[in-house]
């Protein structure tokens, strides 16, 4: 530093430097645990505590919502993708994870051809950032696999990797939607249990209803479970969704000891089933049609039921911790 002041420093800077600890007066201890959000410690947390400052809270984490059903073909992927688009248009940062590791189709509904899928992610070939594909309609997508090992072949290690990926995604989005695979397996159940809200999608028909109930029954038996919401899709007449819900809620209450929450019905729409690949999602191409409006209503109800889909903060376990808790029970 030049004595004549030719260093360009102003007097306040000089004063600050004069008051700074001299070399040798401070011991700097480095430790790998810098995570200030860990409840039990962490260098930064202790630093804040010693300095008398407010301790930083756990980083915000997205609301994680799993769309699940016992039976296939109930419309999970359709509802997930369109809900994601609606939420994105409402100003939220949304990502969709296609957890169907066997037969993925969310990317088809978004009209994208992802370079990487969850298969590459679980194989450790790519990072979650690389696996996250931008879609033309706003939400990010981690595409599911196809030709991947079947669900039954995903072990705890894969699920732990998935938990880490979800944790990263939840940290940089407001809402994380998981498009869960059909069927009951430890893997699909673990994915649902890692979420905060489980949206069970069913149809009024008995096969879909019984499979949805089987899923609810499984969830009801878990030590910690997400809030369960119900959407009745492909309803042929108004009110049938609520009647279906009443029946399912009654059986769930009586036999599984579990309360479920109704968030709406989506009408059967020939325009949906006749859609071709490459067409924009319904809420983009026909935002005013009855089905799109019903999806908007369902989302409003879901927001009310979840307290506004606000990102989670504080000491509540995050998605990775929730998944890790389930993996200990495999």
């Amino acid at each position, binding site marked *: 530093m030049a004595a004549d002041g030719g260093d360009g420093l102003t007097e306040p800077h000089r004063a600050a430097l004069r008051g700074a600890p001299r070399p040798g007066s401070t011991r700097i201890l480095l430790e790998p645990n810098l995570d200030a959000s860990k409840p039990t410690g962490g260098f930064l947390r202790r630093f804040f505590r010693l300095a008398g400052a407010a301790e930083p809270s756990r980083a915000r984490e997205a609301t994680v919502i799993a769309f699940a059903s*016992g039976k296939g073909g109930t419309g999970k992927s359709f509802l997930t993708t369109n809900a994601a688009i609606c939420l994105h248009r409402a100003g939220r940062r949304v990502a969709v994870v296609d957890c169907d590791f066997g037969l993925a189709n969310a990317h088809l509904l978004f009209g994208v051809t992802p370079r990487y899928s969850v298969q590459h992610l679980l194989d450790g070939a790519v990072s979650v950032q690389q696996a996250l594909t931008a879609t033309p309609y706003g939400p990010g997508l981690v595409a599911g696999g196809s030709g991947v090992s079947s669900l039954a072949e995903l072990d*705890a290690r894969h699920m732990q990797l998935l938990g880490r990926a979800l944790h990263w995604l939840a940290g940089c989005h407001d809402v994380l939607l998981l498009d869960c695979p059909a069927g009951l397996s430890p893997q699909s159940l673990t994915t649902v249990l890692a979420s905060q809200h489980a949206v069970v999608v069913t149809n009024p028909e008995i*096969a879909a209803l019984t499979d949805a109930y089987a899923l609810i029954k499984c969830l009801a038996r*878990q*030590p910690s479970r997400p809030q369960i919401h119900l959407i009745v899709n492909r309803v042929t007449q108004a009110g049938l969704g609520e009647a279906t819900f009443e029946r399912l809620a009654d059986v769930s209450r009586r*036999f599984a000891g579990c309360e479920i929450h109704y968030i709406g019905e989506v009408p059967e729409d020939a325009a949906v089933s006749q859609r071709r690949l490459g067409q924009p999602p319904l809420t983009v191409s026909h935002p005013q049609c009855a089905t799109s409006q019903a999806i908007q209503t369902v989302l409003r109800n879901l927001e009310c039921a979840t307290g506004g889909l606000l990102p989670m903060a504080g000491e509540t376990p995050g998605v990775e911790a929730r998944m890790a*808790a389930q*993996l200990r029970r495999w």
Partner: protein
Amino acid sequence: MPQVRERLWAIVAPRLQVVEHGLELIDETFDCSNGQLGPVDCLARDALGAPVLVLLAVEGDMLLTARALGAIEFLDRVGNALAAAIPEARLVPGARGRVLVIGTEASTALLHGLRRVNSSRLQTCMLEPFRLGGEERFAVRWMSAQAAAEDPSQTAAASEEFAVPEGHKACWSALQRICERLDPEVLVEGERFARRITWRGHRLGEVVVRAEGLIGSAPGAEDVVLAEARDVRGFADRLLRGYLAVREPGAGSPGAAAIVREGHSSPSSAKRAEARAASQGSIRSTLAAARLSPEEYSALGGPDEGPAAVSAGAADDVARIVAAQESPWPPTAATD
């Protein structure tokens, strides 16, 4: 010199398993040079069932190199016939024999000389004594022939290359990758026929080579032959459980919260007890209990004949997924 050899042999003979996992003494004083060079110190069988001629390197033994070369030539000539010639040794026909020279600090110069012998059948190691709690113990230091030729000052490799049997190399590579990804602090180390997998000193498991192949063992679980990718994943699952158990001890006990939550509207005490029991079990056990009873099926509006078809939908979906294993990426199937 004979006294030194006697003392060294008394140390080595009961510790062959320590020198190398699975190394088993068959017979002492195996002479393969018609008495010209003197006998090798023992014939042993390694974990793969291959013959191992063990030589002790004692300071001043000028014939050591000659005996080692003689043993190598002997194995080259009749190594494949030893299995039939010594049936009591239970050697595996076709297993490649080798010569193992064991020395101490005092015989370093001899061992260095041996390392210039360019034969893949020859291996050298050094016993380094130390005392722990008044008891004498030995560390085994394997010496690399290749490194010696290039740089004599570089004495040893910490451990030898893992002798993975042919046909199991892919499994071993997969398991190594899993361990690397599990946690950067997971260590895989050991010697020729055994690798220990540890995390911060906690033993998560062990992989050893035996005649039947690559064997994975984890605490509290049966040993498993790692023959296929599925076996590796299963073994990695056990490693992961062990890792989680030592990383977060005390975590778990998932039942308590559930019991509180279930209290609000259970239909009966029996149902509550059933739910509680299930909640304290594994995820798989709760899945097994998900089958609908006839009462549940009927209450949902199904026909009264029973829930035979209840799980059919889910089963079909699983079958659909399994059938899709080999389908190309990206898929062109119809949407959900």
